[in-house]
């Protein structure tokens, strides 16, 4: 199992910026694996079948929560800045799916509002925490852990320990790389064209089968 969990409150800038075999600065998987086939509700209340909805697109999947004080907003802000720099045609080929690990507080409306603060095209998904943890397991990530409240007078004031990486999945449903916290905009700017090229190759290969 990939051990990539970090509770919120710690920024681990342990990113190896030396380029991998195909030049990715993210953590490229030596052996790709099939993305989980799951279904959750989006922020409009509609069912979102992950594999069907993301087929053909380069999908960046992230598990986090809107009250996260550090990792989640930093990861999304950096990724959003890098996505904004992409050409329009390339940008249309990328989907960002954010799954909440804090369904008790992250109502669809709150999640939508929070994601809109970054990019209105970001997709937000909600569901039961047990189910979300199962899905994380299928992506070889550890489950989210709800910490005790950090303010005794406010039972809703708690942190959620969760996996930090953004998962890159090509349009053929293969998990290709992970981007833990510490990834910078320059890293995304370097990797997104490579991931899109990988996505095109994968789409061509799966189309030819």
């Amino acid at each position, binding site marked *: 199992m990939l051990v990539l969990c970090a509770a*919120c*409150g*710690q*920024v681990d*800038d342990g990113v190896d910026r030396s380029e991998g075999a195909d030049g990715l600065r993210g953590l490229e998987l030596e052996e790709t694996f099939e993305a989980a086939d799951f279904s959750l509700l989006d922020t409009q209340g509609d069912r979102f079948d992950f594999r069907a909805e993301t087929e053909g697109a380069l999908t960046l999947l992230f598990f986090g929560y809107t009250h996260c*004080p*550090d990792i989640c*907003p*930093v990861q999304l*802000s*950096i990724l*959003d*800045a890098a996505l904004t*720099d992409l050409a329009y045609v390339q940008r249309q080929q990328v989907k960002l799916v954010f799954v909440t690990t804090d369904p008790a507080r992250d109502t669809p409306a709150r999640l939508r509002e929070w994601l809109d*603060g970054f990019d209105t095209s970001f997709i937000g998904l909600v569901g039961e925490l047990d189910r979300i943890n199962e899905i994380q397991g299928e992506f070889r990530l550890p489950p989210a852990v709800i910490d005790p409240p950090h303010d005794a007078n406010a039972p809703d004031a708690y942190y959620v320990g969760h996996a930090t990486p953004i998962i890159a999945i090509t349009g053929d449903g293969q998990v290709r790389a992970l981007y833990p*916290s*510490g990834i*910078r*905009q*320059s890293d995304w*700017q370097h990797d997104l064209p490579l991931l899109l090229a990988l996505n095109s190759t994968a789409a061509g290969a799966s189309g030819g089968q």
Partner: protein
Amino acid sequence: MQWWCAAQGIPWSWSWRAYPGVWIFVALLGLAYWRFTRNTHVPPQRRTRFALGVATLWIALDWPVGALGAGYLASIHMVQFLLIALLAPPLLIAGLPTAALQRAASVRGVSRLRPLSNPLIALLAFHAIIIATHWPGVVDGLMGSQLGSLGLDLSWLLGGMLFWWPVISPVPHRPRFPFGVRIGYLIVSTVLMTLPYVFLTFAQLPFYATYELAPPVGGLSAGEDQRIAGLVMRLGGGAILWTAIGVLFWQWYRAENALEV
């Protein structure tokens, strides 16, 4: 507990935090001033200037400005730079009593430092310090440790003292540089300070990992924060330097008028 503000990577909180190293530093400055001036009559105006200089340093180094600048916002880091390198030094220098400085200048070790007050050397040294201490590798390498952060703050303060000395030149037995030279010196500095401003404001990517990866404060993205940092340097630095230029022009005008009378 930290003794000096450094980047910690923890979420920002508006709860007050103590930085005893800053208090000790400020107290040592006050103590040094007292020892330096205890046998000298110091006009209250000079004491006030020195106290304002120390207060400026205290604001720049302590919570919340020090903590925000050390590990959260590049724009506040730039505010710190302005306070430590451009605002506090002229106040500190203008607060030093001339009689005590005359005594100190006659000490052999101190007199050897005289070449540093040469405007060209001071100008080059100060701007070399600005470039070095705003270099991404240096900032990211130093801001994560308290000693590194202290080193950066001290280099700004010493660089600022070096920079302002030829302008204020409080030692009376040494001839001051002509007004025109001092005004030219400051105008050249406003031009040289444009360089880091351009890099910060118009960069395509965030320069500093420290601020790019820091827990967010105030809803600013790293790019926006960096652009504001550039503007702070340009507008804030410009305001301080052009105010000084204006004061020098006024003094020059009065001096010329006095000669005519």
